[in-house]
């Protein structure tokens, strides 16, 4: 079966695109899928450090496109997962060194040999974003429960619809259940109400994400992390499994939980 090509994008920067791509790639590859991830953020590459592969880069995506190396030479194999590869972005070039048709050609060469091609989009809605969605079969829009991220997500979802790349599926990242409970953060339902798209995952805020990025080993490797669990669940949904959403409300003290059980809260 040819690969599913999935692009993760957001409009706003810093909401977790790269983290999501790294974790979905790890989760899919741990589950036996052959995965290639492509860093589409030319000039500001980061997927390599999040995956802990920064020291192994020789060639990058622009080298492939401009014919300085073969595709296989630019594909870096993961340290732990033999079926996971990264095609790094070029760091010293700009987004115009790649065109949407370059991306289509590159992805076409990967389709038959892998199960998933994951593309990490840069922030914004300009050339880099257009490149990142060009070859996508499916686009995941990631957002945070926060006004500017939701607004930008809506804009991106609108563009994807106009470009016939929709319907997008939504990842709500960095949800803080305690703040939601105090009505000081938009809930997942609020965000879904506003954006009116299909939900594919809710990832709770989790300090393990930072700790794991420090180490270059995505949190999806960590069986105890809640964010890791959420990303593993999204990966299973991408494979077509029906997985219930995490119950993020189980936090709080025993007393609070008893009160909830008694219907007092």
């Amino acid at each position, binding site marked *: 079966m040819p690969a599913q090509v999935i692009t993760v994008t957001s409009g706003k920067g810093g909401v977790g695109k790269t983290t999501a791509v790294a974790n979905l790639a790890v989760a899919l590859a741990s589950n036996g899928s052959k995965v290639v991830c492509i860093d589409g953020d030319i000039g500001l590459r980061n997927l390599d450090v999040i995956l802990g592969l920064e020291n192994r880069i020789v060639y990058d995506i622009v080298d492939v496109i401009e014919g300085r190396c073969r595709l296989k030479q630019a594909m870096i194999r993961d340290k732990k997962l033999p079926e996971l590869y990264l095609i790094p972005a070029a760091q010293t070039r700009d987004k115009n060194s790649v065109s949407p048709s370059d991306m289509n050609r590159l992805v076409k060469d990967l389709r038959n040999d892998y199960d998933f091609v994951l593309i990490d989009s840069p922030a914004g809605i300009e050339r880099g974003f257009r490149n990142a969605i060009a070859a996508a079969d499916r686009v995941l829009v990631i957002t945070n429960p926060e006004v500017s991220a939701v607004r930008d997500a*809506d804009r991106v979802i609108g563009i994807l619809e106009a470009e016939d790349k929709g319907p997008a599926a939504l990842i709500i990242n960095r949800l803080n259940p305690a703040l939601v409970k*105090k009505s000081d953060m*938009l809930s997942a339902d609020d965000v879904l109400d*506003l954006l009116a798209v299909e939900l594919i995952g809710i990832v709770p805020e989790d300090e393990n994400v930072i700790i794991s990025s420090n180490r270059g080993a995505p949190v999806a490797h960590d069986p105890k992390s809640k964010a890791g669990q959420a990303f593993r669940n999204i990966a299973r949904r991408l494979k077509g499994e029906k997985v219930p959403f995490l119950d993020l409300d189980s936090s709080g003290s025993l007393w609070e939980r008893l009160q909830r059980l008694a219907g007092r809260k």
Partner: protein
Amino acid sequence: MSFFDRLFGRKSSADSAKERLQLVLIHDRTDLTPAELDSLKDDLIAAISRHVEIDTQSMQIGVEHDGRSQRLVADIPIKSAQRRRARKTK
């Protein structure tokens, strides 16, 4: 949100975020500012008034959304023809 906020009926910050986003998204999606909506309303009144007499005081026009699609919804009461005729003969 504190106990006192709730006691004094202050809106939660999540509620304000949602309300503000609802408005901003309608404008983003339709490219219609409140001022443009007002001028659209004036044009509508002028056009419709050429054919029937309408009650401009109680008419309502706004953008509603159904999923991701927006629609312009106008509720324009027409003044009764009989009453108009009665007024004319007076």
